[in-house]
């Protein structure tokens, strides 16, 4: 078998094992939280009798281990189950939320990844001169400000003062692509500002590292232009670390944006997960956890494969 295919197969098997481990951890974690779903649904107005009735109906009187295995049985048959809190089909409500999360992450990535790499290349080209310092200064500032703060500032100027884009990013299927993009414009800006610095700095560092090599000097002596040297010779050799950091940021865009979702009332998976954790709705928490873990595992796999493909020595092992 081709070594890359073998690697992928190995990684996938390991990934499935990891997913199991994650599901056990999530289940145990939600069990350790104080109170159960019945108590959280009824809240301050819970009477002992109502609690008992609700627990019986939701099957909470079963021992946790048997609840875990019945859930696992469902998953293996492709059934995510129904939410304890509102009896909705999890797969159905989750798919809508996941679609939204991916939509936001996609547009944030489409803007931020090329921008970060371009700015990184620019920073190398003008190393230690004012464009480099300006790029680093601005991006490091935006990464240091909490994202909700950037969100509020952009809402104030762009939405309230200028009236350009909506401050509420609620999207739905009946909207056209243009309307959707208008709704998510400010959240995309916020996310771009948040992830830019990390990727830009890594690009800059990786390329600068390569720039010390002898073949760059040769290229320079050939009389090649600086930007051409960077893009043709330095960048392909620096791609592995850059892809790694890009993947980490993509994973963040999918699983870590709950604060941005709250500020803009965006109907993504983060808020959905937090709501259900608060209510101790274990099946939903499990389903979300599995998806988030799968996203991390897949993106890491992609990063590894890309770095192997980018390196001829790894591509053609002796």
């Amino acid at each position, binding site marked *: 078998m081709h070594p890359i295919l073998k690697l992928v197969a190995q990684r996938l098997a390991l990934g499935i094992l990891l997913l199991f481990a994650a599901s056990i951890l999530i289940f145990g974690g939600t069990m350790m*939280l*104080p*109170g159960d779903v019945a*108590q*959280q*649904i*009824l*809240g*301050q*107005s*819970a*009477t*002992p*009798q*109502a609690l008992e*009735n*609700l627990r*019986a*109906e939701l099957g909470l009187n079963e021992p946790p281990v048997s609840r875990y295995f019945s859930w696992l049985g469902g998953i293996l048959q492709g059934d995510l189950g129904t*939410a304890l*809190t*509102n*009896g*909705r089909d999890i797969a159905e*409500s989750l798919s*809508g*939320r996941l679609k939204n999360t991916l939509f936001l992450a996609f547009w944030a990535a489409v803007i931020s990844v090329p921008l970060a790499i371009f700015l990184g290349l620019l920073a190398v080209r003008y190393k230690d001169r004012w464009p480099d310092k300006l790029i680093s200064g601005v991006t490091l500032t935006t990464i240091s400000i909490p994202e909700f703060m950037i969100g*509020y500032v952009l*809402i*104030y100027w762009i*939405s*309230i003062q200028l*009236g350009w884009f*909506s*401050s*509420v990013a*609620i999207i*739905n299927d009946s909207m056209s692509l243009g309307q959707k993009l208008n709704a998510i414009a400010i959240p995309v800006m916020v996310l771009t500002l948040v992830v830019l610095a990390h990727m830009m700095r890594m690009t800059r560092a990786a390329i600068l590292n390569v720039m010390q090599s002898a073949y760059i000097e040769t290229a320079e002596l050939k009389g090649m232009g600086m930007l051409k040297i960077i893009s043709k010779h330095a960048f392909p050799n620096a791609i592995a670390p850059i892809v790694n950091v890009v993947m980490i940021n993509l994973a963040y865009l999918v699983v870590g944006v709950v604060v941005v979702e*709250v*500020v*803009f*009332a965006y*109907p993504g998976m983060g*808020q*959905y997960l937090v*709501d*259900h954790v*608060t*209510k101790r*709705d274990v099946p939903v928490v499990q389903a979300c956890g599995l998806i988030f873990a799968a996203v991390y595992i897949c993106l890491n796999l992609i990063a590894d494969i890309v770095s192997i493909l980018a390196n001829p020595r790894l591509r053609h092992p002796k």
Partner: protein
Amino acid sequence: MNEQLQYLSKKVADGHMTRREFVGRAVALGVTAAAANMMASQAQADGHATPKRGGMMKIGSSGGESTNTQDPALTASEVPLNNLRSWGETLVEVNKEGGIEFRMAESVEASADAKQWVFKIRKGVPFSNGKEMTADDVMKTMERHSNEDSQSGALGIMKGIAGMKVDGDNFVVDLETPNADLPYLMADYHLMIQPGGGMDNPGAGIGTGPYTIEIDEPGVRHAFKRREDYWDSENRGWADEVEQLVLNDATARTAALQSGQVHVINRVDPKVAALLGRAPNLTVESVAGRGHYVFIMHIDTAPFDNNELRLALKYAINREEMVDKILRGYGSIGNDMPINASYPLFDASIPQREHSIEKAAEHYKKSGHDGSPIILRVADGAFPGAVDAAALFQQSAQAAGIPLEIKREPNDGYWSEVWNVQPFCASYWGGRPVQDQMYSTAYLSTADWNDTRWKRPEFDDMLNAAKAELDEAKRKEIYSKMGRMLREEGGLILPMFNDFVAGVSDKIGGWENDPNGPVMNNFSHVKCWLNDA
């Protein structure tokens, strides 16, 4: 109102002067800014007094989660409550003056001993599934909320019912003990009349209200469409469509109102209310309600079993400071009893407890407390500003030599692990339409939510006597005695009653402040209309 102000008001009503100009002029005439704002709203409301039909009204609300359902029995927060008001209606409602308004019931009659109540059910009211609502549906609804397997939040208030039956077009309730306030209990929002009582599908959202559900995305948005066959369309359901956006973040809510994406928002943070009020094209509406923020002690647990210590703590708290700093003036001071002037039959002659370091120190000395720290448990989620309020309390107690120690608890699990479990903690109450219900919910010996462990047979007797008493003067006297007793000996430290603060766009007509609940008792989208529709 003097002539000058009347003239200005008229200009506002006619639309010749903006609200901001009016407030500026009125303040120059010596009116306070808050009063001037109210006059401006009044004048504007007068100018737009004729309801208009049509348009799409958008409300932005906090208090919604992706776990919400349309089942009235499980409704406990504002977003699902707004949804219920859109598609459902109760037998009766409590109006803003505190009286009973008849909805699914046309009239009600009590037997002389207030033990049997007969509700005459309105005829010709269709459910949104086309069927006509009958006394049988009412009966089934009440059964669902009171039977043994019920998970309803209304289970507590249905307890005193001995039997229910349908008699022709009438729905008859028999009580174990007399209760003069039974109609008020039937106004509870959980008790939305559903076809067949909603037994087969409680979350279907089918009722007799002015709207039907078009889109139901819990935790995101809920959209409604007006019903052509609504029975009371002359009075309610003006907008063609209503959309409720779930905006739990306070800043997101105010930004949405300011940028015109929603017309009404609930729970304006008192910290920003004054600033928001200065923004153009909107008004901040606040109304004194019955909700209150409290520090509660279990009077059966040491050291709180000592009334001298309880009094010391009650004198040590600085109520004015709390209203000023925690509520920013959007509220009023409390008097260590859960009743205020918003309740019917309130006795205004009960003396107000004043903040007094000397008296606090004196009672503390008399209590003979050993000087060990008194632990007050608090979390951010206990009420908005709870941690800050506890810090203020600690400081003023310290001045009286009382060693109050704050223990901060996580929000998560606060209502199951701390409230009603620990002997001294911060909490809140939403208030109830009548005194009887408030006392029965939390101060009766047998109440599930007796969070101060107030168990006094003589208090229970008075409560039952007041329930059976149909003579209002006598009832008022009994309630006054009960209030005084609780104020003197209870485990309740009640520094403040909070106002309901809402943000309302100038495009909205028909706004009326209602002390029963936030945003017009959650009827804003049902009773208001769009001026430019």
